């Protein structure tokens, strides 16, 4: 039993890496633009299907990363330009708008790649990788490392580079940032592109160790949102911890109860945090009305 639980903790930890990438993209855009991009999960899924397409042509899913980067970033940029056209009632309208974009992307994926459930057929990626009593697929481990590297890069970018600091400035006070000579529009665009980069990697990762289907995008957005609620607003380590928590909760549910209840675990965690600690586990920002 302990072994099973240890294994669940380990799998959840590895899963948390990709979850964190997805959640960070959502949080970055929300930070600069105060818009929750409800199509974010679909952007991730788009990358996953690109990986599927590349694999079906006989290449490894890894080779999909450059293509996914280009396509997903272009899609993210398009989302930005559409969303930025909203002039009135931005909060409500942007939600409905990005929801609509999500519907478009889901149906495009459905049209191009059909409704079937897909997963990788690469034996190299699926090969077992054993550490002591713990088991994982090779792809899980690879992409966990990749996501940690990406998060370190993101941290460096946000704290050291000009644009990264601009993103943080616009997130904390748009007007003050404007007075400092930062173009908020450009910064928002940059945050969308970075979110696209993270989504591209996360999508390829999802395909490399999991199963994908066209309707999965909405669930991904919800997961990313749950993580940001768990983490509160702000820090990268917080988001990673929230993501690992969600991954572990899901893995434990699958081990101890059933895989059908997996999604319920995240929701339960989410509601618990909402009731007990409405500011997130690690955050202090106000969110209550």
């Amino acid at each position, binding site marked *: 039993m302990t072994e099973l639980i240890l294994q669940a903790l380990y799998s959840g930890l590895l899963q948390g890496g990709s979850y964190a990438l997805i959640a960070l993209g959502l949080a970055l855009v929300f930070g600069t633009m105060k818009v929750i991009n409800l199509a974010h999960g679909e952007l991730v899924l788009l990358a996953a299907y690109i990986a599927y397409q590349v694999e079906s042509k006989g290449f490894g899913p890894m080779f999909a990363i450059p293509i996914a980067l280009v396509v997903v970033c272009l899609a993210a940029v398009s989302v930005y330009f559409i969303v930025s056209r909203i002039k009135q009632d931005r909060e409500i309208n942007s*939600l409905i708008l990005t929801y609509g974009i999500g519907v*478009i992307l889901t149906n*495009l994926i459905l049209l191009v790649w059909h409704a079937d459930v897909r997963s990788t057929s690469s034996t190299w990626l699926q090969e077992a990788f054993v550490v002591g009593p713990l088991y994982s697929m090779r792809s899980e481990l690879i992409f966990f490392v990749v996501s940690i590297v990406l998060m370190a890069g993101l941290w460096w970018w946000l704290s050291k580079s000009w644009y990264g600091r601009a993103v943080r400035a616009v997130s904390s006070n748009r007007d003050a940032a404007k007075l400092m000579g930062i173009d908020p529009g450009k910064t928002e665009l940059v945050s969308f592109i970075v979110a696209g980069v993270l989504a591209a990697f996360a999508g390829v990762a999802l395909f490399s160790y999991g199963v994908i289907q066209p309707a999965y995008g909405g669930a991904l957005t*919800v997961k990313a*949102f749950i993580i940001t609620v768990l983490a509160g607003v702000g820090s990268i380590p917080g988001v990673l911890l929230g993501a690992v928590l969600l991954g572990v909760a899901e893995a434990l549910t699958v081990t101890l109860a059933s895989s059908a209840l997996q999604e319920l675990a995240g929701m339960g965690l989410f509601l618990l945090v909402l009731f007990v600690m409405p500011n997130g586990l690690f955050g202090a920002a106000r969110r*209550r009305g």
Partner: protein
Amino acid sequence: MKHKAPLLLLLAVGYGAVPLLLGANNYVMSMIVAALVIGGVALSWALLGNLGGMVSFGHSAFFGIGAYVSALLTVKLHVPVLAALPLAGLGAVAASVVMLPVLRLRGPYFALAILAYAHIFRILATEWSSVTGGAGGVAGIPSFPTVSGFDFGNKLGAYLIALTLVLLFAWVYARIRASYYGIALRAMHDSEDATRVVGVDSTLLKAAMLMVSAFIAGVFGAVNAHYINFLEPDYAFNASWVTLPIVAAIFGGYRTILGPVAGALVVYLADQLIFKTYMPTGHQLVLGVLLVLMIVLRPAGLLSLFAKKGGAHAGA
């Protein structure tokens, strides 16, 4: 009642012209019934958005719960169908009570939290199979009964029931909006804090709107269940039950009362008769495009084009 004439015309078309001209055409009638069901959900969605200032992506939860409550009451406990309809509404209200803590959250957080709830209810309907029949669903749900010689079980009967309910709830919506509470809610739309200062319990009012909205969506879920006689979780809690009403409400104008219903008739019929013919899968793509175009170009809805010329009863 300033605009009596358009209202009378609406009633004449709804209860006179449509049944007389199309009543015998089962295919068209079934389309119209489905469109009215979606119109009802769109009305409830718009009520929450317009009066409560809340965007819900979780109305499929209320719809599905209403459908299941009514189906299970009639199939397992043999409750009469017409008595089960309001109970279905109450079932959806009970579900909305579970959601009340979410009202503390604002804007995007509320919208996503309610989406999360919709997922939970769908999973529960699938997994709680001793009660709901699980993924296999519920079959043999009774149709509407025969009342004083008229059979409401056929397409025409379902049409009359759906139409009557839509108009009834539109009337309720209009009464709420014209009442003291409606004024308070409209004030809340401008500034929730200022409204609180003058002594309006904004959370209570929003909770009330969530419940009214849930009730309406639940009743239409039940109407649909008795109309198609079969339910399964993936159908009853399908995201379409929120996508279509949102498109309909935005298309018709979510700040008007009958705009969402008119939008549902146009959008659903176009979707089924035109888009679906040319794109058997993925035809909701067109709905997504429509939604995006409406929000970017004309967020007040297409009916707003006519409203400026006066005499738009939908806005009254």
